[in-house]
């Protein structure tokens, strides 16, 4: 591992820490300026019957009437010492809440990504080799169709057909194999559209190259041509898209988890945002920032493995943590 690579890695990690801290402060300010918080929301629930005077007494007793900057400093100090604090909504440690739900979201997001990749590959393969009369053109329209149907609609349709009518899974057992599978399908379909669009465009490009014509001329099988020759160069931009879909998967998991009654990061965020549970929102945003940065770093590391033409330049320029233009700053030899 050369020095320039280590410099590059150190700068990227430093940038990631700044991104995480800024996201923490930004989230705190945004949520603080919004009306309400979980404690006063409960106190002001008309069912409770607290008078305004009593509400103010309780708010003061818990230090919620302190200036925002004082609260921010207290919160940030706690965060920097590694303590994510207590959920204002449930009074339980935020780290416990995240630990409870993270495995479920990881399973769903990974399965959703697997479904998306498989679906994109099937569509990609079909667009190259399916005869026109069997609907090759139709296949090319699938990504647009998948993108335009919201995943909660797909989720509800799948539940009604496979859950209620065919009885493959029970909605009350959201972690069962089939329930997870169909949740992953609902989550994966829109994500597959983005991957398939990029894949189709690159497959079309590679299929027009001389080496593909030579391979065809040698009479190799369709599968061999696809997997050995066309897919590898076409997959390079797809890796970038896959990395960028992390946000999509996290966002989609919110809706999918809600529809399928799964507990996960998505449903935790949904509950926390609707009640403005600041400590949980901040922890999850920071976690998402970490996930996004790490996945994009991994994507960068995978690049040279997929294409030997890609190598790090000696002088590394800083780059934003995310963004499509990132490659231009640090790699050369990207296939056109």
């Amino acid at each position: 591992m050369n020095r320039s690579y280590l410099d590059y890695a150190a700068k990227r990690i430093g940038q990631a820490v700044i991104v995480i801290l800024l996201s923490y402060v930004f989230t705190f300010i945004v949520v603080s300026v919004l009306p309400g918080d979980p404690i006063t929301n409960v106190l002001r629930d008309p069912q409770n019957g607290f008078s305004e005077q009593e509400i103010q007494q309780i708010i003061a007793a818990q230090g919620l009437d302190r200036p925002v900057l004082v609260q921010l400093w207290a919160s940030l100090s706690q965060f920097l010492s590694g303590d994510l604090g207590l959920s204002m909504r449930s009074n339980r440690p935020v780290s416990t809440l995240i630990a409870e739900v993270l495995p479920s979201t990881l399973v769903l997001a990974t399965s959703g990504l697997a479904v998306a990749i498989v679906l994109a590959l099937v569509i990609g393969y079909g667009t190259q080799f399916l005869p026109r009369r069997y609907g090759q053109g139709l296949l090319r329209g699938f990504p647009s169709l998948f993108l335009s149907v919201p995943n909660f609609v797909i989720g509800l349709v799948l539940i009604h057909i496979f859950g209620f009518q065919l009885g493959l899974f029970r909605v009350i057992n959201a972690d069962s194999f089939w329930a997870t599978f169909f949740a992953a399908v609902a989550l994966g379909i829109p994500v597959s559209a983005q991957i398939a669009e990029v894949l189709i465009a690159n497959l079309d490009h590679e299929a027009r190259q001389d080496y593909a014509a030579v391979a065809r001329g040698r009479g190799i099988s369709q599968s061999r041509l696809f997997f050995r020759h066309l897919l590898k160069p076409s997959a390079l931009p797809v890796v970038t898209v896959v990395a960028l879909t992390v946000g999509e998967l996290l966002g989609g998991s919110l809706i999918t988890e809600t529809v399928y009654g799964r507990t996960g990061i998505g449903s935790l965020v949904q509950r926390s945002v609707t009640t403005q549970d600041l400590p949980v929102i901040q922890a999850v945003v920071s976690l998402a920032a970490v996930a996004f940065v790490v996945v994009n770093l991994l994507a960068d590391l995978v690049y040279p493995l997929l294409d030997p033409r890609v190598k790090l330049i000696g002088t590394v320029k800083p780059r934003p943590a995310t963004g499509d233009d990132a490659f231009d700053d640090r790699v050369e030899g990207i296939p056109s």
Partner: protein
Amino acid sequence: MSHLAQFVSITRRRLLTAGSAFLLAGAVTFTGVNPALSAEDPRNGGDIVFLIDSLGGTWIPNNSAISSFQGHVWGHVTDKLVYVDADGKVSPWLAERWEQNAEATEFTLHLKKGVTFSDGTPLDAAAVVANLDIWYAGRKNEGINPIALFPKTYDRADVIDPQTVKVTFKKPTLGFIPTLGYHGSILISPKTLAQPATQQADLAKTSGSGPYVVESWKEGDHVTLVKRKDYNWGPPAVGHTGPAYLDRITYKIVSEPSLRVSAVQSSQADVAYNASPQELKSLKDEGFTVATPRYLGFVNGWAINTKLEPYNDVKVRQALQAAINRQEIIDTVYTPDWKLATSFIQSNVPGATDQSALLAYDPAKAEKLLDEAGWVKGADGVRAKNGKPLTLTLHSNPYLATAKAIDELIAQQLGKIGWKVDIRAFDVVTFTDRVKYGGPTVPAYEVTRSFIDAGTIASILTNANNGENWFNLDDSDKTLNELRDKIAGAASTDVRNPLLNELQKYVLEQGYFIPRTQIVQRIYVQSPTLKGEVYNGVAYASYYTAYKSE
């Protein structure tokens, strides 16, 4: 294909089962059904799944006991000192009997022997004192709130002997005994109460004395309760005091309402909470049990801000009272399961009187009152006075799913007589922050509030004694102040009931409160094979007496 065939056969079988259950059920009504009257003997065993929109926030008992969601779980994990049925009738439970002095300032409770919490601690006088103290005061700096509707006149509670508690109030508190049956008054083990808030927030670490204990729970997902086999102190009023019949109850969150109902229809669950009123007729026709119990409390309606123009004019308020066609609300938004408001408190509250005559729909009277008040109809059909249009801004209550639909219907009704109505819908967070009783932009606050004892009313009328001042009158209405003080100080229901009648008449006549309909805030759709459940005074379903039939 085989799945499809199976589905068709299940549907047919279900229809047949549902049909026969419907015939067998005959004229049994489900609200407040007494399981002792059921035709078949309850069967031991079986598990049920109850699908619910949410399981609230924290599980700190004081902060969650009255939640429309968590209250279901607390009702099975804990007991109360007295039982209050759907008609507000108070009967002994863990307090076998009680006495009070003539001034209603001292109460002596005699406790049932042999009752224990699930952690083994005896439920004795010391435990009751610990609960009364925390209901009254909470531990505010720790985030443990007091129970807001617990009498603020509480002074202290003393242990006389292990089975006897003496409770003293600073002023007459006739509502104390019924309040012990309120959903906030759940008895928790003193060991749990001594824990800090973060420990109390873990439901698995909380011990009650109820017929079920927590087997497992996951925040945002489910709570599973399992039967406590040594339970033997149920409320005699429900006709059963031994262990529960059902082995297990799982409260599972399914936030999408149509999925909750579909899951019950496809036999994947036994109860769906909070179905849409529009679905109820077809579900009944399919043979499902539909329960729409009314809680004891205020009806759904508006508390009017009497400081805000033009609602500082009694004639405008009276016109508003007469301009609402309440029957049309029931016919259009609800089903016949909903009842017309007869006062500003629900008709099942002891002490409620029938004031229907004051709530009659009379658009001609409303127009006449507005004419007299100087509001003249313009060419556009909107009334105006001194160049200002007659407007009403409504903030749909997010705690009631049908609130906006009712607002829209009322806007049409008022529009006919020249009112311009603006409807604003907020989410819960924004609503609780911006919409308050008597707020400067809130002419009408939409009320949804349960209570156990009508004495509670005294604390909402004005700002005296830390009151909520619903009508923004402060202490300007002498008649109301007098009624408030007499009701708060009444030492017997014989003295209090005529005062309550007078108060209801006065508040409605003055147009301080504009009722819409009696409220049903908890709707249950239930499998026909599940029977014997009981609905208490705050409309929670108890499955302590329930069983599954063949």
